[in-house]
């Protein structure tokens, strides 16, 4: 019996895909969500300590969120960790998770269109300002939904995409929202008018188009000054000038789709469907390719919440989550072990 279970655990780890990771507000913990609907909590302080053992690189706690499918996106506030994916949006208190006693604090579900629609949520972000706190969710029903978290009321949806939405970000202090979709377009929404302000179509741009990979857009990032827009996926990853909406630099990864990217200091880090983390200069020069464990990468994240634990994590289709303290190489890997049934 024990053998069967360990074999099952082995298979679980062999087919594991981590879709998203988030650092806790205190910066001491890392939460990772996978395709089996589980969340694992790692202690960065333990893993980074000089006398770290193999055990401290395994989750200190893990729990099951969705019975039917994966968790595709995590977002975090000072209090809550919010999970979205193949099911309702569920929020857990960080303090409960760290105390190893997670309880659903609240949950939201997107309005159903029909009996057979099971729209997934691929991306969720929270916009918080002095007056309100709004949760946006890019969903499988081609819509971006929004809720007011303060009272849990459904605000509205943004329609216009013709296929499901991969990623969303907010910009200009929440005045605008950008969504990237499977249909190949990125739409910049005016939040107050609730309509599409501009549409970007990289698959039509000759610099970026790669029809053999597809036109879908997954990689979507805006820099701090709201000056540059990074778009990638089927088309080549490129920085788009937000004012003119023209690509200024492309980041060539032949045959490899980029899933995630982020601005870090004067560099761009990106990763996708290969087991490499790419370092680029903003001008498009390929600085470095760091080999990592996951063969396909879905999450890269830098811990800004704690100076002592400032690390880069790279997660994807592997049971290993690579941790880089110096961003140039993998220092060690965390192991996503299935939660005890």
């Amino acid at each position, binding site marked *: 019996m024990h053998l069967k279970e360990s074999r099952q655990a082995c298979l679980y780890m*062999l087919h594991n895909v981590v879709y998203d990771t988030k650092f806790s507000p205190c910066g001491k913990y890392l939460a990772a969500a996978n395709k089996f609907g589980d969340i694992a909590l790692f202690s960065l302080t333990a893993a980074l300590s000089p006398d770290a053992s193999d055990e401290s690189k395994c989750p200190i706690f893990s729990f099951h969120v969705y019975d039917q499918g994966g968790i595709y996106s995590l977002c975090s506030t000072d209090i809550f960790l919010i999970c979205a994916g193949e099911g309702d949006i569920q929020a857990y208190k960080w303090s409960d998770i760290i105390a190893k006693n997670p309880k659903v604090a609240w949950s939201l579900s997107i309005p159903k269109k029909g009996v057979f629609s099971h729209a997934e949520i691929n991306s969720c972000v929270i916009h918080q300002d002095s007056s309100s706190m709004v949760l946006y969710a890019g969903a*499988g029903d081609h819509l971006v939904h929004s809720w007011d978290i303060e009272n849990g009321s459904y605000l509205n949806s943004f329609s216009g995409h013709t296929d499901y939405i991969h990623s969303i970000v907010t910009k200009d202090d929440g005045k605008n929202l950008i969504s990237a979709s499977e249909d190949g377009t990125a739409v910049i929404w005016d939040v107050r008018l609730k309509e599409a302000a501009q549409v970007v179509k990289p698959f039509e741009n000759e610099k970026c188009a790669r029809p053999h990979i597809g036109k879908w857009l997954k990689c979507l990032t805006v820099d701090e000054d709201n000056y540059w827009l990074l778009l990638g996926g089927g088309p080549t990853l490129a920085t788009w000038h937000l004012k003119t909406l023209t690509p200024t630099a492309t980041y060539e990864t032949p045959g490899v789709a980029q899933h995630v990217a982020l601005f870090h200091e004067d560099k761009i880090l990106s990763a996708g469907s290969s087991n490499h983390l790419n370092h680029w200069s903003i001008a498009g020069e390929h600085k470095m390719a760091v080999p990592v464990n996951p063969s396909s990468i879905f999450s890269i994240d830098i811990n800004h919440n704690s100076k002592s634990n400032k690390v880069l994590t790279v997660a994807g289709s592997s049971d290993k989550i690579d941790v880089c303290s110096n961003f140039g190489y993998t220092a060690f890997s965390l192991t996503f072990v299935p939660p005890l049934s």
Partner: protein
Amino acid sequence: MSKEVKDGKKRLLKAETPVPGLTDSKKLRQEIISKNQEGWTIASEEDDALLRDPLTDLQSFQASCNFLKSAIRDIKNVKSSRPDAVGEINSIRTDATIHFIHMKKLNRLAHFRCRKVRETTNEAKHKIDQCHLQLQNLLYEAMHLEKEITKCMEFKSKDEEIELVSVEEFYQDAPATITNESVTKNDPHLQMLGRLEWELELRKNLASKLTATKKNKEQLSQEIQSKQDYLETLQPKLSAILQATRPVQDYLSMPYNAIQEEHQMAQHLPQPLYVLYMQTSAFKDACDKCLKVSITGDVDAAKSLATWNFEPDEESDSDQEDLEKQETKRHRRVSAEQSQEKKNKIFRKHPLSVNLTISNEDGTELELTFCYLLELNIITVTVKVNLSEKGTLSSITGGDLLSPDLILDELYPGDFGNDSPNPANHYELKKHGLLDLSTYIPLVGRPYLWCQLMGGLQFLKKEISLAEDADGFSNIARIPVQAKHSICAANIQKTISLLRQRISSRLSLLQQLSSLERGIIPVSVDFVKQFPAKINAHLSTWSRCTWEDLQTLAHAKRFLKSGLIRSSSIIFQAVIDRGSAKMNAHVVLTADYPQVPPLFILDIVWQTQRTALTDIFVMEMEEEVNLHYQELSSSTQQNQLLPNQLQRLLMCFDVYLETDTPASTLVPVEIPKEKIMPRTSRGPARSKPFKYLPELGIFTQRY
């Protein structure tokens, strides 16, 4: 002058006054004369000496001396002054002479006295000696007496050694005539005497009781003997009756005798095999009539073995010593023979063995022969598979699946029957310079762990490392393991059902393999509905593959590293085609398939080479068959797992190809999208709709 002399004489006389007769020379003279006249004897003089005071004698002696001195001086004076005065001189002379005689007498007296004193001294001395002697005698006597006293004190009576009844019991139980309480209470001596008397009484009683009981016993044993004699006379009669009924038994096909004979044979089985035989036949009678249990071998050899006491260690040690001594002299051939002999001795089997035959519904039989290795204290098994006549199977890729060597691999996880389960054996073999048991398996059979459990032998687990002592022999090696029925009973049902399961699963697997070799995936009727009616991909080749082949594959590395694939795994390679697209699937089966589901490792050649390392969809397909296999087997039809997995793989390959992004819009699409898929991609990984919903006939993502 004369006056002076007279004065002198007077003084002398005066001085002599205490001494009668010496007052003047005349008197002295008279005294002497008178004495002579009175006839004084020497004897009387002796007495005189005693009577007189010696001190006065001393004074009179001194006085006489002085007188003599003055007399001489007077004579001289006279002679010098008046030479003629002869008369005067004469008178002085006479006085002097008298005094001289007196001196003489005193001298004598002194002598007497001296002698007398000496005598008395001697006498006193003698007396003292006598007293001393007496004292010595008395002291000796006293010492002797003291010794006697201590001896008496130390005397130990025999009664102290006798265990007596306690004082309380004595007063309670003994009659008053013996206790005599009033007297004995105060006198411990009398009390002791009383207690001794009571003890004697008691013991006498007991002795008489003992003799009576002995007598009774003798009588009873005599009775028993006589009854036994009577019973023994019955034996030949009964066997005669049995002999007579034999034809009837045969006629009625009731093999009571055969069973009895076998049971008698079982008496000579070694303990572990006996346990095995007993428990399996009990199981057979109770639950499973399809089992056949029998004993084979030489009963007489077993009988003689039982009487021959076997002492392995000492003998073999001396053997080895002898060997060392003689090795230089003898030929190498001889020593080789000896080692062969030694090997034979170590691997000596008990002459009896137990045969267990498990038959399947279709008549295939699994014949297990259990042997017991006397020296190593383990049970080994040799296997034979008797295929039924109708089920003749020809499978090239699975030819070895029914081979006796492999068919029982991992009946229990990890049990390949290669190493001896008895940790003591390792040392025993090492001691005799032999290799590990695995080298001798063709000779002795396989010592599977479950065989030991069936025989009631339980050894310590290998995982617990044994602390070897200096010479490499663990103490544990010396503890003999005893066969226990309880161990056997706890395992037998499971083991037999596993054996039965194994043979049926192997047979069905063989059937499936032979069908796969022909390119047909034998999906059973119950599962056909789970798959779409039309699947375009097809299985083109099915072949065997080795572990070494697998190791060369980069995309198999993560599976190899996980430990799910071992060198003992049975590995096949399936090639699945659709048009110009080709998928290679390495299928890894463990020995206990279908308990452990097969593992699939995929790679696709379609425009480019794609594996799970480069294409996440390949990983998703692997997940479909490796992780979500539960839907593909039911508890009653576990054996259908492999064909169902393959069928699903074909279906997934179709989906994969149909949803693959075209290389270019200019080239006509080779594989058109035929299947109904509400969404071709979903989620961050753009997952493909690999899941088929039979009730709707559509493909969706697994969520």
